[in-house]
């Protein structure tokens, strides 16, 4: 049948046309197109990868930050606690010191008072002895002015000595 017998001219022109088409499209169309599509797909993939990485990095950073914050808080708490401890200690120390100092001062005062007292007493004693001597001299002067009285006194004194 006519329909099933290929014509030589058609075979020839079809072959030529198709080869030319294949060559030209392969060189000027498919090569750049496939390259562009491939490159674009790769760049999209890269971008997605990068985004994924950034996300991971971000979450890592966030967790790190949180950890840092937690650590900082802990440290702060510790420092506060320590400070409080130091403050308490200092207060206690100060109190102790003040007490001790007070006691020492009181002691000193007491000592001073005693000293002063002793000095005062000795001064008083001196005064008393001086006064006593003056009195005695006055008495003696009055006593010795009278002969009779002198003799009585000497006798009495002599008697006293004897008694001793």
């Amino acid at each position, binding site marked *: 049948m*006519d*329909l*099933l*017998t*290929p*014509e*030589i*001219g*058609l*075979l*020839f*022109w*079809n*072959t030529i*046309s*198709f080869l*030319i*088409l*294949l060559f*030209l*499209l*392969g060189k*000027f*169309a*498919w*090569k*750049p*197109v*496939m390259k*562009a*599509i491939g*490159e*674009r797909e790769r*760049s999209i993939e890269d971008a997605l990868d990068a985004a994924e990485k950034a996300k991971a990095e971000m979450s890592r950073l966030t967790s790190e930050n949180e950890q840092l914050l937690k650590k900082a808080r802990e440290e702060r708490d510790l420092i506060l606690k320590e400070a409080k401890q130091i403050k308490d200690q200092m207060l206690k120390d100060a109190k102790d010191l003040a007490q001790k100092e007070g006691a020492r001062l009181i002691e000193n005062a007491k000592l001073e008072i005693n000293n002063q007292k002793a000095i005062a007493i000795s001064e008083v004693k001196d005064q008393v002895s001086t006064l006593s001597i003056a009195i005695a001299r006055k008495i003696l002067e009055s006593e010795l002015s009278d002969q009779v009285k002198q003799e009585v006194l000497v006798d009495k004194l002599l008697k006293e000595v004897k008694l001793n």
Partner: protein
Amino acid sequence: MKYRPFLISKKYFLTAFLAFFCLFGAVMAQDVHASHEGESAHIESVSKEHGEEKFNITEFIFHHIGDSHVFHFWGEGEHWKGLYLPIILYTHNGLVTFSSKAFELNDDGSKVVEVKGMRFVQAHGKIYYANEEAEHGSYVSHEKNKKGKDVITNERPLDFSITKNVFSVFFSVALLLVIFISVANAYKKREGKAPKGFQSLIEPIILFVRDDIARPNLGYKYERFMPYLLTVFFFIWINNMLGLVPFFPGGANVTGNIATTLVLAMFTMILINFNGNKYYWGHIFNPPVPWWLKPLMIPVEMISIISRPFALMIRLFANITAGHILVLSLLCLIFIFNSLAVAPASIFFAVFIGAIELLVAFIQAFIFTILSALFIGMAVEEHAADHH
């Protein structure tokens, strides 16, 4: 409520689509009608002897799906409008070229053209060396073949003419080059950016060929065969669609011509066998069957080298030709019943089949490409350790 504009636009689209096809059918009907007038005029002269006018549907359809040396636009007789295509013949005396106008549209071997001392006639779209003397006004001899059909026995020169089909192939090649080189330029211009305009229409199809045809069948070796697969796919598809357009520059039955499909199948065959690895050839010459089956299997395997591309060739040819015959037959019903009342039904069915053919145009391009990819993939497949 939200979907309303979408629905309306869809409706408009559908209407436009149907309107287009109605126009399509109407133009086709006109075409047929116009041809019919010529045909009937021709038949009248013949049938005067028979005494009754008869519409020869077979001859009419085969004339339409066959090749021609002219590209007919419209009109008959004095009002004939069309393109006279150049005739290129390789004869006994070398290459001969002349315009097909010289035959004055004669197609029954009665108009002789003399070039370089040789005499040619055209009969049923083919060119023959003319007889010395006319016989019933015709310069060709007829003979009945075994099946009782009339065949012309005259010798034929090798015909390398730019026929209607060749012209259409050139046209589609030019169209493909324009389309895809402009798309490639768009890629260069918009490097790394999302596709835009026409480029975004083409890109999904290219990706379809790559991801659904090449990759599943060829594996990681797909890149080497992409240019061939893409070219074959778009060449078949665009020619299938141009074949559905009833007017110039479409209307030629390129992919429904056995020569075209033969050439395409041939390329696939060459690619299969030139890329076949040791496993492929091992499967043919040492098939994994018991030794006593080998004498039977080796010839069968060798036949398969031919039979696969042969199936490709026949499938595409038959599908496209069948579609054209179907549409033409439906439109011919008007002339068979010789009544305008049949026209609405006839056109309705022609439109229906036309829509299906639009689908078939894509499907056949897809099938040809995917089977080519499959066969090439089978030939280049690496078999790790298993001897199958």
